[in-house]
């Protein structure tokens, strides 16, 4: 038996998604832009997936735009909004603990002359609303705040952005990277005051290669309520915001995975219980400190096994079929920027592991992890 406890990196594809994907590959392989029956069948699959995502976000289907995944959704939101807003000012505000797929395009804009404010995170990885209010001015064009941090699970005060913008009457576009939150907590972008929201398929048991961007009020032929421009040109797909023939199988799987997600309230209770079970087990091993705050999303538990470097422990667990992350899977071998910004000591950072759950996680997997950590602690020699 394996214990896959790195569900923030990716998740196992659920059976519903596999079957939708396989139907789209084997039967409905037409081009959705073709106007005959075979094309229409493929188009119907896209529409169905779009609708199931829209339901989950309590928004209109015309507000959902498919992309190749979370990274592209974030780039499209940030580069697209900055391009459309550049006459309105030049300040961009993000948190200092954003995912590299947000930090990357924002740094790119910074090099192009935008002024970037990175809001400091406290020892729990959370930005303060006061800092956000102080940072927003009338020249602010974009605010991008993640819903849930991918390394420690901290929930950010995304809703504060709308109030901050309203106070100074700025026309800033508000983007939220909700890739780790989607499917795990209820997200209603309109109620959160968010203009753009990124989500991804493979983090919620869908296939890799599909993601979506929510655009408040939709987008059609260069007209939109929210200021955003395409970054790719040359086709009518996704109402010209994201042209290119759609990967129908991946999107079909995405839609099916969303429909198969359990009700968040009930599932969240189960995950809280799993986290309690894990924390009790960690306590029995000893010498392990949690880096995630108590009120973090319970799907993500970041810990430090004091005195033992992350990589040997990760390798040791891997040899027993127990999979956790040493830092974030998206930055192989790099020291965590998030933990550093939380002010953790070098020893805590170099011994950090991230454990993350999914709707398929069982207590047996946590038992395997605990016994692995206990044996690893006894056999692995302390690092430099």
């Amino acid at each position, binding site marked *: 038996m394996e214990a896959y406890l790195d569900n923030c990196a990716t998740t196992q594809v659920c059976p519903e998604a596999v079957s939708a994907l396989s139907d789209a590959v084997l039967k409905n392989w037409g081009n959705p832009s073709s106007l005959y029956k075979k094309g229409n069948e493929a188009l119907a699959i896209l529409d169905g997936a779009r609708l199931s995502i829209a339901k989950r976000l309590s928004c209109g289907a015309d507000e959902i735009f498919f992309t190749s995944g979370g990274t592209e959704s974030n780039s499209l939101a940030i580069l697209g909004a900055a391009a459309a807003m550049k006459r309105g000012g030049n300040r961009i505000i993000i948190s200092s603990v954003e995912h590299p797929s947000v930090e990357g395009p924002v740094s790119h804009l910074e090099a192009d002359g935008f002024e970037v404010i990175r809001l400091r995170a406290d020892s729990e990885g959370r930005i303060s609303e006061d800092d956000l209010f102080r940072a927003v001015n009338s020249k602010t064009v974009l605010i991008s705040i993640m819903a849930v941090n991918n390394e420690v699970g901290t929930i950010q005060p995304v809703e504060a952005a709308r109030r901050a913008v309203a106070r100074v009457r700025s026309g800033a576009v508000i983007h939220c990277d909700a890739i780790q939150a989607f499917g795990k907590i209820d997200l209603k972008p309109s109620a959160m005051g968010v203009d753009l929201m990124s989500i991804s398929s493979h983090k919620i048991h869908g296939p890799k290669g599909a993601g979506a961007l929510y655009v408040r009020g939709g987008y059609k032929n260069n007209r939109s309520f929210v200021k955003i421009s395409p970054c790719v040109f040359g086709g009518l797909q996704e109402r010209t915001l994201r042209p290119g023939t759609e990967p129908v199988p991946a999107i079909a799987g995405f839609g099916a995975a969303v429909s198969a997600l359990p009700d968040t309230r009930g599932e969240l209770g189960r995950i809280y219980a799993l986290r309690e079970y894990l924390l009790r087990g960690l306590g029995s091993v000893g010498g392990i400190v949690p880096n995630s705050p108590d009120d973090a999303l319970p799907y993500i538990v970041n810990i430090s096994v004091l005195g033992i470097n992350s*990589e*040997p*422990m*990760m*390798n*040791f667990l*891997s*040899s027993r079929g127990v999979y956790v992350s040493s830092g974030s899977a998206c930055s*192989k*071998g*790099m020291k965590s920027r998030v933990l550093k910004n939380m002010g953790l000591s070098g020893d805590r950072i170099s011994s950090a592991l991230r454990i993350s759950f999914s709707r398929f996680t069982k207590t047996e997997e946590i038992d395997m992890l605990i016994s692995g950590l206990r044996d*690893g602690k006894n056999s*692995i*020699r302390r*690092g*430099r």
Partner: protein
Amino acid sequence: MNEVILLKNGEIVLKGLNRRKFEDMLIKTTRRRLSALGEWRLTAAQSTIIAKPSDEGTDLDAAVSICRKIFGFAGLSRALTLPKDFEAILSATGSYLSDELSSVSTFKVCAKRSDKKFPLTSPEICSILGNRLLEEHPHLSVDVHNPDIVVNIEIRDDAAFVHGTQLKGAGGMPTGSSGKAAVLISGGIDSPVAAWMMAKRGLQLTAVHFASPPYTGERAEMKVRSLLEKISLYSGPISFFTVPFTEIQEQIKDNCPEELSTVIMRRFMMKISAVIAADNDCGALITGESVGQVASQTLHALACTDAAVSMPVFRPLIGMDKDEVVAAARRIGTFDISVLPYEDCCTVFTPKHPRTRPKLKYVESAESALDTDKLVNDAADGAQRSVIDGLRM
């Protein structure tokens, strides 16, 4: 069109009575490497191996790039085969080389007439053909000292050959002509370059890698495999041994003084490699050490590692600066792989202050805390063997 690749033998032309043996090795290697692109007829004549594809449609550019990585050739050219008829040579040369000739402004003709029965002398061939090319390509002029392109005409025993400027070959000696040696390979920048340099001298390579799970991960070994794939494009298939090294590293850490741990670890690596080398007909070890580069590569430390084994240890980088090694690694194509950030066994448990002038008698006495022979033999017995061949991936 009747095209071939002319491969000019390098150093082996200086050999005496056993030159034929070296030539046979070169032919065997060339046949093996080119076989991925189809059937070839290989003939040796007058210090040259002529490679002729059986199929007209064979990708000769790919074949040239494979041949440029075969040790033992000084130079090579893609050439047109013609009957030994001067009219045919005159009319074919300009059109065969027309792409190259139209993109340059100066040329010279160089004729070699090894068949002295051919009616024209070499200077006559040069002069008549040169004039003809000037007529056909009026933008060209002749420059005998620094031409952009050399038009080569070779009148050999069985045919005439026309080709442009000769490409430089990989040099060195035919693979296997100097025997076998085992290289200690870590995944850093140096050892792949050392392996390549000794392979160039005709050594067939066996590679030994030390894995210390869980301190080193699977990616570290995958990295070494990609490095060896690159080298094997030159050296031919490499026998690759992965040695389980965790227990030895842990025992050194638990039982030996920290400041000697690096030199003791390296002595273990040498001893294990020597056992594997002896079992696999290797006559020497190869390492990527360079004097003074790090604490384990001082004169004193090298003396201690040397004393661990009785077989010759080749250290081709011994007098090279790091930037020279890096430049070589870039040429071979291993640099970008070497700089990937995975832990290797050399950096596990690195002491803060390693002894830079270790004395052998203290090192040996520190080692006596360990059952060295058993640890060495167990590790060598536990080594996993595989074969790495970048051409067959």
